[in-house]
């Protein structure tokens, strides 16, 4: 009587008394959750930083600064530059490399290509690890579910040796197993939320970069025509 009632149902005991496979699933889920949270915070910092840098650069650029000076400053402080600054540096550098008398169309074409290439690279960087978050969000519940199903299977199998089946025989096993699902959900929910949020943020940044590229090419074309 007392043995069944006073069974240790604490969290740690539930984990340690689980079967090996369930423990393995839990370990995997903990690692996945840790890494997903790591990426969540990294992307949070990176995207915030990029948005701030983009705001600042657009502010400076449209205030009518000397483009050569701006380019020089970006080149010198390359390690503190944002994506949009790098796109500008690539485009402007390519534009200034051409001699003054060359064909305007060809110059603008190569400038656009340079900006496009940098833009692709920057977007690649901004969107890196987002797919990992998406994967965690969609897969970790299944991993947790697998652990749960396995644990419940085992706890029911242990019932076969008992003549009188009571809920007390099954309940601890099910509780152990359900922890795996809880872990999977704990890993998945923030990952999904973060993925959706970051994906929309990076899309916003991408449209801002693209429109800036168009506007910069207009500015440069006007400057070359003068």
């Amino acid at each position: 009587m007392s043995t069944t009632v006073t069974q240790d149902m604490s969290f740690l005991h539930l984990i340690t008394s689980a079967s090996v496979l369930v423990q393995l699933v839990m370990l995997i889920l903990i690692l996945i959750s840790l890494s997903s949270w790591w990426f969540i915070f990294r992307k949070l910092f990176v995207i915030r930083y990029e948005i701030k840098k983009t705001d600042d650069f657009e502010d400076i650029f449209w205030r009518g600064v000397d483009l050569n000076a701006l380019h020089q400053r970006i080149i010198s402080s390359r390690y503190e530059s944002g994506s949009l600054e790098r796109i500008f540096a690539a485009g402007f550098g390519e534009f200034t490399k051409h001699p003054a008398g060359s064909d305007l169309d060809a110059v603008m074409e190569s400038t656009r290509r340079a900006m496009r290439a940098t833009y692709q690279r920057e977007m690649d960087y901004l969107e890196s690890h987002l797919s990992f978050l998406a994967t965690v969000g969609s897969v970790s519940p299944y991993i947790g579910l697998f652990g749960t199903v396995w644990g419940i299977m085992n706890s029911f199998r242990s019932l076969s040796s008992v003549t009188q089946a009571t809920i007390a025989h099954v309940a601890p096993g099910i509780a152990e197993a359900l922890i795996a699902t809880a872990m999977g959900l704990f890993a998945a929910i923030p990952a999904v939320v973060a993925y959706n949020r970051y994906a929309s943020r990076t899309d916003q940044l991408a449209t801002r970069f693209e429109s800036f590229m168009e506007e910069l090419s207009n500015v440069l074309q006007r400057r070359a025509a003068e």
Partner: protein
Amino acid sequence: MSSSVPRNSPHSEPRSLLAGVLAVLVHLLFIALLVFGVSWKDHPPEGMMVDIWTELPKPVQEPVKTQAPPKQPKPVPEPVKPEPEPPKPEPIKPEPPKPEPPKPEPPKPEPVKPAPPKAAATPPVKKPDIAMKEKPEPVKENKPDLEEQKKKEQEKIKEQEKQKELEKKKELEKKKELEKQKELEKQKELEKQQEIAKQKEAEKQKALEKQKELQKQKEKELAAQRQREQEAKAQREAEAQRAAQQAAARNQVTSEIGKYKALILAKIRSRIVMPPDLPGNPVAEFSVTLLPGGDILDVRLSKSSGHAAFDSAVERAIFLSKPLPLPPDPTLFNEFRNLNITVHYRE
């Protein structure tokens, strides 16, 4: 484009370490929540434990009860009435409702003596059941006025003596009645025994009669069986004859059915407006539902000939040829209720 090569280096954010620390922090927070949450839920089961164990103290109370009985005799003495004539406990019952019969037996203690032990006994008595409490209460009432008690007791004793005399008389009367009753019962028993004996004899006779009847029945059954066998043989022969007759009848019937089917088909054929120049010999099959009297309820094309013109021509012909010729015997109509008609383009 030269700047593009080291471009990936600016992406190595120093804050990734902070991100890792934050991630670990989040997990620690969550685990702490879980641990505290789950262990917090651990306590209610312990509360359950307490509830379960409260049942066990009951056996502890039982010993208290066992101690109580010795106290019971002490309070009982209050009715001192038994003192004069302790041997007859029965008559006392009506007068004092409270005391039980066994208690009056130890009436040794005088009315005064019981009081102090009662006082001593009362405190422990509080614990036991309500039944116990009820008894001590009257005791307390008696304590204050012992003189009155004595008077009352004397009066009671007198009353008791009177009553006892009355009761003795009653008992004598009762004994007489009982003797009479016993005699009556003995007579009844004798009568019953006689009746039983008679019944047994009757039953034996009946059993014998039954046996005889059974034997007779068996004989009758045997005779009946023989008769039946003979009858069965006769029946079989008759049946065989009948079967032969029926087969003949069936043959007649089938021949009649065939005849009428041929008649129906001939009537339908006569109404068909054949579409000209169909290749080969197409066959159209229709299932026709008939009503008694030869009317057509439903015509369904069960197998097309492959030529819609021929199918529709046949269908029209079926409708045109109603009423269809049916045998006059209404019992044969079942054979025609659902009729399958196959019409060949060429005969």
